[in-house]
């Protein structure tokens, strides 16, 4: 397959130049005549309270204020910031219990930062000054920060629809085996086990930390059209959701996706679109900009799901993982959002990784008075990895089995059930990932060398593996359309709604388009981001854009190419099957002089006349456009292995990451630099989750670290050198053999770094993040092996 011309090339990303020169426009750069500025008034002093009095009158009179909006001044329809309901058939949504429990402005504050009112003014400053004049009185309610507190019988109910504040548990109708995702008989498995390891892990609440804060502009006007500029990851879902929320036909809603300054899941679904659009509807004809401050972004947009993860694994002496029983209980925040999604997939990743003989998983999610949880890169997989990979290592230490060998032997592979039972793996390059990765880090030597250490600096190596998904078929709708418009000079526009979150998706899709059409890369242009122009795409989530979008691009381009060949066959009076298209020429196989330029065909399709001298039409009329409305046929999971070497300063508990090797089977790497970038960024976030990051709340439910000064992540200087190994195991379903690379990179590093610390100290950390504070405390309590 090495005769690709464009695919696999290290071309500059399509957005690179504009971004590094500062020319790229983001939502906050938008300036429009008569623009107004909206401020969302949020409850900052309580995490749980009823608004007993809201007096907006002083604010309304403040200089520059155009309008103030309370809960009653806007639509009373509920919504769910997640958009999962658009992705499953209605009966399934009902079975899952998905609800719409959010309001544009609320009088029942469920977390610090909940929106209670809106102010529209002629400047951001005027809006902020007016916000200070709002008089609010609250009746404080008890604050529930943990599932235990929230489920107490006398707890205040977040919604009457979810008794006991249990937002979600796997439904018995879908999982008849005790409402668990299960096969075999896990109890019988444990009875047969030679070794059982059991632990409860605690996962922190972490933020996506995307660079661009959520910012929007909305304008209601233009003959009753609602326009919304947003850097959402899901423009088409927003299109549909805004139409429903404001009860408008979709033709009267226009969504323009602005440059996405980082997504990682935090722009999955709606964030503040409901508020900014409600404001725009209140001041018809005027554009309203709402630009969240970092701390509002922090509190008001979703985080990863934290929680407690109970896990029990049974092994035979030879390492056979005879039984797995796991129960995830998440503290999901103030609204329903992604309650059903993450709690299911977390178990799906557990199910999909290893060949558990017997398996059982339960996933619950409780309401708590914290920032609602939603999507964050990996969607449950990093939480699972931290626990699963560590507990496996604990057992392997006791069984005396090598950690790389065990993983090679027991990971699932081609033909096994994937994360969704019944959809089997079609490709798997994990063995190669493990082999190459182990060699690159020097696994065997280091394991031996670090087995016995003295002194205050202790080194360790760790490994973890993961599998993820490429799109969410068959669980969720996997649909993308693509139109390819061929211009009269034989250049092309790819028109679709696929989002590029900075990941390189548009570059890769352009490469796929050029490859399929046989055009040079510079003759293909991507046009996305406008709901008026491009057709449906479910949005950038589930690592699907390249995988599903890429297949849609191929289909559309093949459609266009077929039309070109059809016309060439007529012009050359040849059989279509005998034609070859190369370098923008179509010729008859074996007789290269019998040819026609693709440009001639395209030109004549557009400029088609009756010639006065002959009275004949030239060429064949009609501009060539290819089209695809593509539904994914598989979910081609990617695989990867991550190896980490650390040095722990046992006097301070500080961890220095010395080395990291990531070996990733992403199928064909369409644009290798983008894949490498995704892997490296994933490592950074994975390390952060395991060792540094956590949102901290005080007992009142107020967040103590809602800025980048107070919440730290791994920065460039904290990162080790990374060896990035791409294993390109061809996938039969993926576009040109590609699988996903978007989320997977974050998963295995979470487990690998935890295992490296475990290896260095002989102490396993069940609570994340593994901070120096926790390390030093554990060393003091448990002592170090000599």
């Amino acid at each position, binding site marked *: 397959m090495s005769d690709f011309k464009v695919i696999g090339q290290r071309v500059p990303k399509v957005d690179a130049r504009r971004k590094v020169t500062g020319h790229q426009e983001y939502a906050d750069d938008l300036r429009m005549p008569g623009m107004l500025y909206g401020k969302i008034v949020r409850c900052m002093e309580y995490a749980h309270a009823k608004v007993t009095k809201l007096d907006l009158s002083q604010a309304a009179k403040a200089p520059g204020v155009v309008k103030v909006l309370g809960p009653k001044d806007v639509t009373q329809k509920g919504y769910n910031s997640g958009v999962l309901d658009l992705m499953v058939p209605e009966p399934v949504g009902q079975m899952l219990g998905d609800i719409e429990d959010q309001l544009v402005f609320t009088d029942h504050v469920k977390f610090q930062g909940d929106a209670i009112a809106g102010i529209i003014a002629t400047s951001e*400053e005027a809006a902020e000054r007016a916000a200070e004049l709002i008089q609010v009185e609250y009746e404080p309610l008890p604050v529930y920060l943990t599932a235990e507190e929230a489920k107490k019988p006398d707890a205040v109910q977040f919604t009457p629809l979810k008794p006991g504040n249990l937002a979600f548990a796997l439904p018995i109708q879908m999982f008849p085996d005790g409402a668990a995702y299960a096969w075999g008989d896990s109890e019988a498995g444990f009875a047969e086990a030679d070794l059982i390891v059991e632990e409860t892990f605690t996962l922190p609440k972490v933020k996506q930390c995307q660079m661009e804060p959520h910012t929007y502009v909305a304008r209601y006007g233009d003959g009753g059209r609602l326009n919304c500029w947003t850097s959402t990851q899901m423009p088409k879902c927003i299109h549909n959701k805004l139409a429903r929320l404001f009860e408008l036909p979709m033709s009267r809603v226009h969504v323009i996706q602005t440059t996405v300054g980082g997504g990682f899941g935090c722009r999955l679904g709606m964030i503040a679109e409901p508020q900014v659009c409600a404001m725009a509807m209140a001041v018809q004809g005027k554009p309203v900009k709402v630009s969240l401050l970092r701390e*509002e972004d922090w509190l008001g947009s979703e985080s990863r799901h934290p929680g407690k993860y109970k896990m029990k694994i049974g092994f035979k002496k030879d390492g056979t993982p005879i039984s797995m029983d796991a129960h995830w209980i998440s503290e999901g925040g103030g609204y329903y959002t992604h309650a059903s999604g993450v709690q299911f997939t977390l178990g799906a990743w557990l199910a999909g990784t290893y060949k558990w003989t017997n398996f059982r998983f339960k996933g619950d999610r409780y309401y708590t008075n914290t920032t609602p949880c939603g999507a964050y890169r990996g969607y449950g997989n990093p939480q699972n990895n931290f626990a699963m990979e560590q507990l496996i290592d604990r057992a392997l230490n006791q069984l005396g089995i090598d950690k790389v060998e065990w993983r090679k032997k027991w990971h699932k592979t081609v033909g096994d059930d994937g994360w969704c039972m019944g959809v089997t793996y079609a490709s798997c390059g994990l063995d190669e990932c493990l082999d190459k990765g182990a060699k690159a880090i020097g696994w065997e030597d280091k394991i031996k060398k670090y087995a016995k250490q003295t002194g205050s600096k202790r080194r360790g190596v760790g490994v973890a593996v993961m599998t993820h998904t490429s799109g969410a078929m068959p669980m969720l709708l996997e649909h993308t359309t693509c139109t390819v418009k061929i211009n009269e000079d034989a250049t092309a526009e790819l028109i679709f709604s696929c989002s590029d979150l900075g990941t390189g998706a548009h570059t890769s899709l352009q490469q796929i388009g050029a490859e399929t059409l046989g055009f040079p890369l510079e003759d293909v242009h991507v046009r996305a981001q406008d709901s008026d122009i491009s057709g449906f795409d479910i949005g950038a989530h589930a690592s699907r854009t390249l995988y599903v979008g890429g297949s849609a691009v191929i289909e559309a381009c093949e459609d266009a190419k077929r039309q070109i060949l059809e016309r060439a066959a007529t012009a050359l009076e040849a059989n279509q099957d005998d034609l070859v298209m190369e370098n923008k020429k179509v010729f008859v196989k074996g007789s290269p002089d019998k040819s026609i330029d693709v440009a001639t065909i395209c030109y004549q399709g557009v400029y088609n006349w009756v010639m006065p001298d002959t009275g004949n039409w030239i060429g064949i009329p009609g501009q060539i456009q290819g089209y695809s409305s593509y539904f994914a046929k598989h979910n081609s999971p990617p695989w990867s292995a991550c190896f980490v070497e650390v040095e722990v300063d046992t*006097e301070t508990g500080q961890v220095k990451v010395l080395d990291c090797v990531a070996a990733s089977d992403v199928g064909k790497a369409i644009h290798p630099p983008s894949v490498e970038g995704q892997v490296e960024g994933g490592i950074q976030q994975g390390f952060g989750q395991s060792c540094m990051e956590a949102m901290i709340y005080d007992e009142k439910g107020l967040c103590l670290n809602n800025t980048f000064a107070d919440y*730290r*992540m791994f*920065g460039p200087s904290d990162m080790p050198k990374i060896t990035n190994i791409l294993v390109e195991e061809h996938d039969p379903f993926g576009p040109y053999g590609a699988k996903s690379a978007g989320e997977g990179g974050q998963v295995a590093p979470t487990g690998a770094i935890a295992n490296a610390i475990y290896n260095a100290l002989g102490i396993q950390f069940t609570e994340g993040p593994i901070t*120096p504070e926790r390390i030093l405390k554990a060393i003091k309590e448990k002592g170090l092996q000599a």
Partner: protein
Amino acid sequence: MSSRVLPVFDLLLPSNLEEAVGLLSQHGDQAAVMAGGTDLLVGMKVGMSPAFILSLADIQGLDYVAFDAKHGLRIGAMATLSQVVDSKVVNDKYHALWYSAFTNGTPQTRNAGTVVGNILRASPAGDCCCAALAHGGSVLLQGPAGKREVDLDEFWLDYRKTARKPDEVAVELKLKAPEHGYGSGFAALTRSYQDLAKINAAARVIMDGKVCRKVRLAMGAVAPITLRLKEAEKVLTGQEVTDQLLEQMAAAVRKEVKPIDDVRSTAEYRREVAGVLAKRVVQDAIKSVAGPCPYSCFMGA
């Protein structure tokens, strides 16, 4: 809630110190002096709202880093952290201060932020505060009645409170001249690179062979102000420095510090590593007596 929009203020731009002091006598209580602004402007986005900002930007000649063997080091109010990092004399003779400036913030904030601003900010976590206190010295203040010097040991009164009067401008930081056998070291523990310190420590020793003749030990983020650890100093003074003695000193340090829990760390952790960090900076300081700056490997990094 913070704001992107700075509160309204009047900007005062005196062109000399006398004028500055004059303006401060008029508006002192409502005015904030601004050097690099890297701390002040951040504060103004989260609630600080001075009616006047008196910027030192237009006063010529305050951006010096000057040394003479008799009087020691003088750092002017507008000398940036970057200037100190680039100064050969600081790198040669004031290792602790050099390293505290080198690890301070980011290249951008080092280019704007000043050493004197760091001292005046009076944060218990201030890196230069800690190093400067170990070196020992004073802050030169100029007010309506003229100039006065306040010893660093008396300069910080409480959390973010200094001995500076509202009508005074800090003109320079003075650090004592090195004597024979002089060495110094600084260390900070942070959550990530380029973070404010969880805890920092600095030591200045004057060695006579293996015997520690004099020592100044400073520690930050373990009390409302940067602390001198006098009990720990006593353990070392006049003694031959051995591992055992360092352990004794570490034990004294742990007793002397009064840390708290916050988002960066816990009191328990700070107390525990306080002793470790103290040992390390004393060892670095001793090492640097004979040799070059123990951190010179970072030069040009």
